[in-house]
C-alpha cells in the first residue's frame, strides 16, 4: 500500500512540474501501478534504505535513486545493486 501511495503522490508531483524518483519495495506493485521513475530495492518492508545504522548503504541507495532522475523514458524501474 505504501508503494502505491508514494507512486500516486509522485505522479501528482510530475504533473505539477517536479521530477520524482520513488524507492519501491515490491516489484509487482511497481509494475502494476507504474510510478514515473522507481528504484526497486531488495530490502524488507520498513527498511527501504537498507539497514538502520549503515549510513554508507543508505547514501548509496539514495544516489542510485537520484541518478534515475536523468532518465526520461518513463516508466523507469531499475534494480538497486551495490
Amino acid at each position: 500500500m505504501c508503494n502505491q501511495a508514494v507512486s500516486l503522490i509522485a505522479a501528482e508531483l510530475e504533473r505539477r512540474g517536479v521530477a520524482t524518483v520513488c524507492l519501491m519495495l515490491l516489484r509487482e506493485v511497481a509494475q502494476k501501478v507504474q510510478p514515473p521513475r522507481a528504484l526497486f530495492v531488495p530490502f524488507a518492508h520498513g527498511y527501504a534504505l537498507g539497514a538502520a545504522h549503515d549510513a554508507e548503504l543508505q547514501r548509496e541507495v539514495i544516489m542510485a535513486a537520484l541518478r534515475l532522475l536523468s532518465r526520461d523514458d518513463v516508466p523507469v524501474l531499475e534494480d538497486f545493486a551495490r
Partner: protein
Amino acid sequence: MAEISELSLSLRLFLKAYRWRRIDPVPHTPLRKPLHEAKIALVSTAGLVAPDQPPFDEHVKGGDTSYRELSNDIDVRTLIDTHRSTSYDHAGIESNPNLGFPLDRVRELASDGEIGSLNHRHFSLMGSITAPGRLIVQSAPIVAQSLADDGVDAALLVPV
C-alpha cells in the same frame, strides 16, 4: 527482499483481490538542472511525525490520507513512528528514523555537493491507504503543489 508471499495470509488474500491504481498515462517532468544544482525534497509514507504533531490515525476507514509538514531543520532522532501496521518490523525505523525519512543522509549529500540544496520543508504521510481516492483528490495535489510552489526541482519518495 520484500515479497508479497511473506505477508500474512489475510493480507495476501486481500492483495490478491485488490485493484491497484494504475498510473496511465505516466506523467513526466524532466530534471531541469544537474543534480548538483537541484533543490530536493523528501516525501515519506512511514507515518513519522514531529513531537508537536498529532499521530496518524489507524482507525480511519480506507486509510488516513492526512499529511504532516516536516521542517528541514528538524532533528531526525526526535521523529516518532506513528505507523501502526503490523505487516512490517518497526525496530529499524524506531532506532533510526532515517530508514523512512533519510534527512540526515540528504544533508550529507548536499554538504558533499552531490545535490544542490534541500527544500525548507518535506512531507510525511502514512502509507496504509487501501482506498486512495482522498489521497488522489486531496492530499497528493496539496503536497505536490506546495513543493512545486517552493521551486523544488526533484522529490525522493520513500515507502515503508
